[in-house]
């Protein structure tokens, strides 16, 4: 059969004969008719996703005040926007936090409020020039009062994303939500079968100039997103659309407890079925899409991969991690992803939306997502820890411990077993308390058994954060056999930071 062109499809939209289905319906159709048959019958497959996309924001042009101001700093509802763009343009980023309300309200919420038609307070300062004499500005506006309000998102619509779980013994608050200790839960993102870029994994129809559903308006892909990584199926795209046309249902500010704010963005991409290959690609199912389960308990750039999992398993609500049944939950809304794919389908059927082919496709190879170039060596715990550390054996008395501490003039004394394994820790304060109660205890009776430890090879920053979180001033450094190889204190760390 001869392939279709985008003009053929658009003519069918105009005369009302276009055949549109969602990416959820397509696997069944391809199974029944084969890819060739499906390509003959179906003209467009619609996709959808609705989830947190941190790398989002909006350009807002406020119009000139009288006398005019060249804003040097500007805040919308106490959330600062970037103003290094002429006089009265600002870029409001989704993850910028309110200076008065903190994580509860951020740039994402300002954008949501604007789309919802709410009024927003603006405060701006400037240094004053001959052409822009004004130094201070306070006003209140709604989206109708300002000129352009353009959503411009540098990195949206991740093709796929990792699943997050937490093998550590502490609850973590991340951009993947609350992660309970000991793999207490697992969270995932992306829409699976409806995921826009998974339905065209070589980006034959997606790229600069593709017209898309963006938050209820017609928007465009403007090119590859930042961190675009096609080799690992972590493709991303940059998108743009008119905030004034958007539907507040699909632009939602969010707060991830302990992390900050983000914007839930609704994106739907129509995939024109030009040939059998494209039809075949849209037949992908949840079972075909796999991703990695990562341990967010390790706060490093490369987190350990615990297993591979597919979206069918994830969506069942339970996955097996190291023999444990772990409850999963999505962070993005499949319900709304479906609503977006359906809405886009309706637009096309009603002749309100005409898909375009890109003027330049997203690159599907040759792009590498590089790690950051960092200057100098990152110091590790091994660089600052005290390597000569005094320990005390289990079974000895508090009095023995008191002597050791006094002789050594330090505060923390790790307690070790006969096999030299770390069993607990006592501080000078523990001893003082025991002595005050004049109890003739063994160290075992007064030691803290749940010891927070460090690893010699970990970066100083993660060790410092752990000290801070547990509100302690020292941690024994242990090797993989639980043997104490050093001790690191917050003093050691501050000295190092002072030097840096």
């Amino acid at each position: 059969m001869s392939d279709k062109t985008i003009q053929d499809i658009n003519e069918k939209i105009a005369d009302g004969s276009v055949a549109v289905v969602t990416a959820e319906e397509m696997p069944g159709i391809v199974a029944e008719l084969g890819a060739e048959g499906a390509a003959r019958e179906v003209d467009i497959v619609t996709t959808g996703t609705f989830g947190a996309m941190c790398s989002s924001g909006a350009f807002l042009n406020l119009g000139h005040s009288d006398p005019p101001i060249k804003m040097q700093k500007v805040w919308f509802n106490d959330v600062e926007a970037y103003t290094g763009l002429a006089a009265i343009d600002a870029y409001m980023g989704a993850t910028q936090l309110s200076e008065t309300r903190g994580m509860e309200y951020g740039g994402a919420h300002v954008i949501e409020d604007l789309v919802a038609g709410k009024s927003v307070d603006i405060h701006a300062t400037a240094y004053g020039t001959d052409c822009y004499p004004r130094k201070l500005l306070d006003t209140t506006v709604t989206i109708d009062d300002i000129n352009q309000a353009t959503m411009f998102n540098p990195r949206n619509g991740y093709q796929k994303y990792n699943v997050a779980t937490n093998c550590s013994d502490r609850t973590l608050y991340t951009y993947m939500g609350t992660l309970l200790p000991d793999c207490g839960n697992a969270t995932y993102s992306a829409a699976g079968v409806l995921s826009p870029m998974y339905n065209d994994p070589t980006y034959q129809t997606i790229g600069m100039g593709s017209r898309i559903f963006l938050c209820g308006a017609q928007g465009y892909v403007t090119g590859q997103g930042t961190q675009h990584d096609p080799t690992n199926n972590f493709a991303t795209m940059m998108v743009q659309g008119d905030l004034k046309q958007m539907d507040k249902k699909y632009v939602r500010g969010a707060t991830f407890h302990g992390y900050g704010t983000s914007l839930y963005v609704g994106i739907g991409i129509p995939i024109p079925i030009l040939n059998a290959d494209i039809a075949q690609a849209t037949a992908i199912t949840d079972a075909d899409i796999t991703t990695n389960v990562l341990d967010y308990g390790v706060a490093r750039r490369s987190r350990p991969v615990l297993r591979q999992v597919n979206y069918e398993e994830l969506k069942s609500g339970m996955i097996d991690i190291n023999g444990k049944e772990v409850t999963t939950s999505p962070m993005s809304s499949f319900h709304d992803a479906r609503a977006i794919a359906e809405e886009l389908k309706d637009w096309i059927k009603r002749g309100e939306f005409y898909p375009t082919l890109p003027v330049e496709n997203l690159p599907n190879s040759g792009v590498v997502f590089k790690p950051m170039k960092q200057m100098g060596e990152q110091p590790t715990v091994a660089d600052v820890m005290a390597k000569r550390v005094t320990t005390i054996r289990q079974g000895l008395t508090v009095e023995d411990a008191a002597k050791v501490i006094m002789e050594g003039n330090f505060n923390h004394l790790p307690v070790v077993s006969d096999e030299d394994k770390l069993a607990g820790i006592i501080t000078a304060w523990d001893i003082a308390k025991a002595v005050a109660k004049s109890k003739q205890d063994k160290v075992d009776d007064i030691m803290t058994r749940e010891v927070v430890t460090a690893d010699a090879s970990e970066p100083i920053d993660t060790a410092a954060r752990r000290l801070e979180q547990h509100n302690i001033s020292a941690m024994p450094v242990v090797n993989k056999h639980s043997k104490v190889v050093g001790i690191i204190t917050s003093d050691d760390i501050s000295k190092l930071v002072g030097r840096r």
Partner: protein
Amino acid sequence: MKFILHATTEITSKPLIAEVVLETGILLNIDRADVKPSGGEVVIDVHQDGYDTVTAAFKKRGATITPLEQPVIKDEDECVNCGACISVCPTGVISFKDDWTVQMEVDKCVQCGACVTMCPHGALKIDK
């Protein structure tokens, strides 16, 4: 049926719950206990038949009772049906329906607050 028992410091020092169980002979399940120097708050689950007797026995000892009819409230306008709240709930209150909207079996809720913290959209609230 679940209720919250509020007790002041004067009575938290007494074995309040044990006394009530002994007196009424009705078994209670403690879903959640939060006892601070300023007083205590305990979520108690009791079979419907024993509810009146048990709450009366607590009131007699000076405690205040709040029935938990709607322990956790979801604001439908804010909820986007993401389901993030599902995996943090210790008692499996929240689940997806077939159409991927989120449903709650609130009678299983112990008011731990985990879902409230998790919800990115501020859609959940604990009723006090």
